[in-house]
């Protein structure tokens, strides 16, 4: 039933535009969404700024772990844009470091989630009935675990042992410390199920769609159908899920800070900054206000961008 209803006329659209591919059309539509563009720009700016802050001393101005006991609990000034904390560390530099850390968690966890989700989702949808049953059973099971518990247990098991790559000690991957990777893996392990279900559902319904049937009739190979017909149509769903997923992962990491499983000092993540800031809220409320603003801005931007992407990638929801 749903495939019959196509109330919007493509013909009109095509009169005014040249023939374009799925992606360039989507991009064009996205560009028309002012809110999404602005959000994307802000996100890009924050990301760039935090990366630059790590790479260029002139941007961060102070090191995030540089204690200066002569300037503790300062209000914002030209010397310290966002003031200082009780160890005299510059909040501007700490906020940028924390933001980058949280963004790394968000993006990296989402990358793992998507990889696992797409692989298992496709495996389930295309791999025959038995495989499907097994994968569905696994997702049901993963779904039944309390998320926070699993994140805590996985993180605790992964962290602080001599594993390769994610083990304790010096970062074995530059820029990605052991605790970051352990947290990312722990969060990903409980989150991939949603994407897996999404991908499986999408592919199953695509399998029955007319154009896949048509492609099959003209003799396209299975791989070709998957690559050029199914994946692009699945990807739009996945991209939207990722955009909404990143802030969720950042939240998850932040929640860990409340249980005493945060990022080891002197590193910071947005969650740790908020959590540690609360303890000092009556003494220096800026310590908690800055990271809260940063979290809120990130969340808003990801939400607007996600909305924009969904509208852009789904041809049916044009105004």
């Amino acid at each position: 039933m749903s495939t019959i209803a196509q109330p919007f006329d493509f013909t009109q659209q095509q009169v005014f535009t040249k023939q374009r591919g799925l992606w360039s059309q989507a991009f064009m539509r996205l560009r028309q969404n002012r809110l999404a563009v602005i959000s994307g720009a802000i996100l890009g700016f924050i990301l760039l700024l935090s990366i630059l802050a790590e790479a260029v001393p002139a941007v961060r101005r102070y090191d995030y772990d540089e204690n200066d006991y002569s300037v503790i609990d300062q209000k914002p000034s030209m010397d310290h844009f966002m003031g200082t904390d009780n160890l005299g560390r510059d909040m501007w530099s700490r906020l940028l470091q924390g933001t980058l850390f949280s963004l790394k968690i968000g993006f990296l966890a989402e990358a793992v989630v998507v990889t696992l989700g797409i692989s298992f989702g496709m495996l389930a949808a295309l791999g025959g009935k038995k495989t499907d049953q097994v994968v569905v059973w696994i997702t049901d099971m993963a779904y039944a675990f309390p998320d926070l518990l699993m994140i805590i247990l996985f993180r605790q098991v992964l962290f602080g042992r001599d594993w390769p790559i994610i083990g304790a000690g010096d970062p074995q991957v530059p820029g990605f410390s052991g605790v970051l990777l352990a947290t990312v893996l722990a969060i990903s392990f409980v989150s991939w199920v949603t994407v897996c279900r999404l991908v499986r559902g999408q592919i199953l319904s695509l399998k029955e769609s007319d154009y896949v049937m048509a492609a099959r009739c003209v003799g396209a190979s299975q791989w070709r159908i998957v690559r050029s017909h199914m994946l692009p149509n699945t990807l739009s769903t996945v991209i939207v899920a990722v955009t909404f997923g990143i802030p969720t992962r950042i939240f998850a990491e932040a929640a860990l800070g409340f249980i005493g499983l945060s990022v080891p000092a002197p590193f910071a993540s947005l969650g740790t900054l908020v959590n540690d800031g609360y303890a000092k809220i009556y003494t220096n409320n800026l310590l908690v206000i800055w990271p809260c603003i940063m979290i809120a801005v990130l969340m808003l931007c990801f939400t607007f961008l996600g909305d924009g992407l969904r509208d852009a990638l789904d041809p049916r929801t044009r105004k």
Partner: protein
Amino acid sequence: MVGYTIRRFLALIPLLFAVVTITFFLMHAVQGGPFDSDRPLTENTRARLEEKYNLDGSLGEQYVYYLRNLGRGDLGISFSNDRPVRDIIADRFPVSLHLGLYAFVFALSMGLVLGVVAALHQNGRWDYATVFISTVGAALPPFILAPFLVWGFALKLDWFNVLSSDYGPISVLDWSWVWHDLTHMRQIVLPTVALGFLPAAFIARVTRASMLDVLRQDYIRTARSKGLDHFRVVMRHAIRNALIPVLTIAGPIFAGLITGSFIIERAFSIPGLGRSFIESVVNRDYGVIMGTTVFFAVIISVMNLVVDLAYAIVDPRIRL
């Protein structure tokens, strides 16, 4: 449908078995034991404690022992206060359920009303108000929202209390808790809002989107062209279909709310299950960890089943 339900229930057994197994071994793989503290404990005392709580055998033996007890419906005892895990869950879950229900009612009513109103006034004042509220809601996770609510509404305005009510058990046979709650509104409002705001925002977004989608469908146009008035079109034709996606997310949201939020329960000092669960992990209270995990797994799985069944009822296209 009955056959389907029975099959799904049977599938729960291997699922729970897997959940128990994974949790058991992960939990024991985490460093630190329940009796580790900085206080001295003689070797002798320690050995006796481990024997008392059946921690003296090998991991495999402990596992088999736990499974055997679980099969008999025995969830074990808490190491920290010697109480049966069953009693702990029976004490704490009603509290989380109580709070969770309020939050759910709040989230659903606010989300639905805002979402529907916004969709009917697309790009109007109401729409922008909804979009604003739902984006702000989505941008403020509970751990940020709760302290600010307390600061603003309890400390500055003194409309509500900092500490929450004790959330006694609720029941359908004895309605005295309703009166208790009505007289304790000062203690109930803030936790409810803090817990329910994020889901409310989410529900509002989903409702708005799905309502907009439905209102564009041909059958709505048909209904309108038949001359039905606006109210009837919306109530009879639009909402029913627009609710389907909301129903899908309402199930997990409900399960999430009633199983207790560690952060909210801590922020308002509520004796709920969410807090005791996290504390048990921190304390390595193996009995409570396992018991609560099993309990949660059952709740979540049953909730999923209920959602699937409800889905089939509202959407005639789906056959089970």
